[in-house]
């Protein structure tokens, strides 16, 4: 399977019976631990990052990296990120992912503790797959998996 093509969509990978690899980004250590467990309980392989820059580095999109090379990040099937982070926000991260040829097919989910319609719309317009309100519950992650399974 060519990891950089759109055939590495969630659905394709699930049909092969593989565990989806999720990159979870959050500056809050408690939230990182919780989202990691939520995803692991839903049979996902999880990598966590504490900020947008580290996330981009993992994805191979960092400033010092050659964006045309395949890295471990090209095996990521989903990115879930907090919105409010110091430095690079989840929105900034979303934009960078969607601007990159290698990663733009990867679904990005934004989480936030604040229910602000303009914020939500901004993220969805920029290509976010879904917006989720924190604190996350098991039912939220289940819903996320269902949504991604039916994604074309």
């Amino acid at each position, binding site marked *: 399977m060519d990891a950089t093509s759109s055939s590495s969509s969630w659905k394709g990978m699930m049909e092969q019976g593989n565990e989806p690899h999720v990159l979870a980004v959050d500056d809050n*250590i*408690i*939230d990182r*631990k919780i989202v990691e*467990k*939520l995803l692991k309980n839903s049979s996902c392989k999880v990598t966590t990052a504490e900020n947008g820059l580290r996330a981009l580095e993992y994805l191979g999109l960092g400033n010092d990296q050659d964006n045309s090379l395949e890295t471990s990040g090209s095996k990521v099937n989903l990115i879930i990120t907090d919105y409010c982070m110091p430095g690079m926000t989840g929105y900034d991260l979303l934009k960078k992912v969607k601007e990159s040829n290698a990663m733009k097919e990867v679904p990005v989910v934004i989480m936030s*503790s604040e229910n602000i319609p303009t914020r939500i719309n901004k993220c969805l317009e920029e290509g976010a797959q879904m917006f989720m309100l*924190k604190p996350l*519950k098991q039912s939220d992650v289940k819903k996320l998996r269902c949504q991604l399974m039916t994604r074309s």
Partner: protein
Amino acid sequence: MEMCQMRVQVFEYKQSLFREGTLDAQFTQLQQLQDESNPDFVAEVVSLFFEDSEKILNDLTRALEQKCIDFKKIDAHVHQLKGSSSSVGAQKVKNACITFRNCGEEQNIEGCFTCLQLVKQEYLLVKTKLETLLRMEQQILAAGGAIPMIE
């Protein structure tokens, strides 16, 4: 003490914490995430919460002691604490943070001092109660029983 009695005691104690608003449904979510692959999950999360909260409360105390108060920094700290307390189900701490944020937004220094005291109080209360609850639950687990859940 008999297992039955222990479980009833824990159930009633937990129920009282929910009833008085110290804990909310998010705490139950955390407990439901715990399984054989990670039997200390709740204790680990709670421990992280204590560490993180104490650091933030120290930072907030220092921030309010400055001659020139940086309200942006204060807001950032309170936002963090609001997030963590919300994620572990520490409802009263979360609510105290919401009030604190409002004072910060209004740049109400007196209000901020009062709010900080309130947050500290609520934090110490939930810390004591969670430590007690987890200790009681650990005794049940060690004796081979199952933790009663509040639906």
